């Protein structure tokens, strides 16, 4: 398995975020906090790591003057996740 990819998704919080984002069009920061069960600070770090790797994209909008962060998986992220899952399955079968 690609070492960088393995390292990126080895963290359970990042894996939870990536798995949730693969099945939705976009999700809010708050929802990802709820899904992963991580704290605000921790999730910010993990999201930044995923974003720096080009795995996800972050969009900031305003809802009634309150900032709202929307996160979605990129095309590259989808391909990497597929690769990761395929290899994970082959590991499990072997």
């Amino acid at each position, binding site marked *: 398995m690609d070492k960088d990819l393995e390292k990126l*998704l080895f963290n*359970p919080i990042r894996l*939870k975020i990536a*798995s949730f984002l693969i*099945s939705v069009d976009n*999700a809010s920061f708050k929802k990802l906090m709820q899904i992963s069960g991580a704290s605000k600070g921790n999730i910010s770090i993990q999201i930044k790591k995923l974003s720096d790797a080009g795995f996800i994209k972050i969009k900031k909008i305003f809802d009634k003057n309150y900032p*709202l962060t929307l996160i979605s998986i990129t095309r590259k992220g989808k391909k990497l996740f597929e690769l990761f899952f395929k290899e994970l399955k082959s*590991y499990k079968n072997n």
Partner: protein
Amino acid sequence: MESKEQISIINEAINKAKEDLKPFGFNFIFWGIFIIIMCLVHLLFTEFIQQSKFSAVIYWTVLPLLGMVYTTMYNIKNGIKKGYETHIGRVVKILWMVFVFSWILVILPQSIINNQNPIQDIILLLAITVTTTGLILKSKSVGAGGIILFLVFYSIEFYPLVNTLVYCIIAQTFGLLIPGLVLYYNKNG
């Protein structure tokens, strides 16, 4: 972390991304009731609503536009509260945007210019949109609602003597209201 554990994390996260059918149900119920009331008011106060050439057009444009503003705000608010948008939800949203634009840009100007009753055209457009929504959501009740709307469309074509507003009430009841209630009270979510 073992591969088995990783797969279980993936499964768990994916299962949390289920589409909630209740908001779709709410939209169907709202529009079903809204249009039925509008038809009944039109039937009861026909002379008042059709007092001038454009009064009926204004009645059938301004009120649905207000309804659209309300449902758009409801859907935005609900989307923010839910915290995510599924692929299915996005496709259905785009589909209904196409319905709204077709109504505003094609049917409405045509009915004003040619001075013709737009109900039959709207029912055809609604039949296509509801049937497609049913196919996307894999909902038998919504799909059946769409088929009933097609039947109402052809009934207007072959039995034009009955008041089209009566046809409209039938179309809204079986095409939107009942499928909406089924979606709203669906226990499987």
